[in-house]
């Protein structure tokens, strides 16, 4: 079944640890995104990708990095977690359409991260 998967769903970790948030999609989409969202607040785009070997930073400055080695996989890595990274992280994907034509984004269930 076409879907977007995120693991782990919840993560509690100590300061300074390296973490990787996983995101995979079986939607067949080229474009993938990572958003950061604090409870009840707007979504902030932190990274996006238009396809394999394509990654871009979003409008929110982030100390995280991403990679896109396979179309379906878009992991996000924090080299050294800090309490300020505590948030919810949402992964999304969409079809590639012509430039300027908005595509529907499909979201994963999210990862709630707590850094102590």
């Amino acid at each position, binding site marked *: 079944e076409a879907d977007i998967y995120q693991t782990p769903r919840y993560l509690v970790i100590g300061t300074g640890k390296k973490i990787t948030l996983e995101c995979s999609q079986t939607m067949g989409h080229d474009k993938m995104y990572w958003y950061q969202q604090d409870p*009840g*607040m*707007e*979504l*902030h*785009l932190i990274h*996006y990708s238009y396809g394999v070997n394509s990654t*871009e930073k*979003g*409008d929110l400055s982030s100390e995280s990095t991403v990679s896109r080695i396979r179309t379906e996989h878009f992991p996000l890595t924090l080299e050294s977690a800090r309490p300020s990274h505590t948030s919810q992280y*949402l992964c*999304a994907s969409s079809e590639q359409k012509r*430039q*300027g*034509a*908005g595509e*529907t*984004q*499909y*979201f*994963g*269930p*999210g990862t709630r991260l707590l850094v102590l």
Partner: protein
Amino acid sequence: AQRVTQPEKLLSVFKGAPVELKCNYSYSGSPELFWYVQYSRQRLQLLLRHISRESIKGFTADLNKGETSFHLKKPFAQEEDSAMYYCALYAPMDSNYQLIWGAGTKLIIKP
């Protein structure tokens, strides 16, 4: 700069009453606008987009370019409409197009 404003963080109405969630945007080009919804313990999902001109779950939204608004409306609210609603604008940021999100409005439908 492109921006989406949802002036109400919280909107509470009684079941059966009309609902209007406000969204204003700032963009000099031809806008493409969306409403996304997140029900409790569910994923964020598309509710409707202005180019489709359709009604989803009884909700409609009309683009008003003169007022730069895209308000979401429903004539008779139901309890299952309680959710977080986000307005989003598809517009260029730097050299790429992306969704620019409003802060969201939490809608509570009282029985």
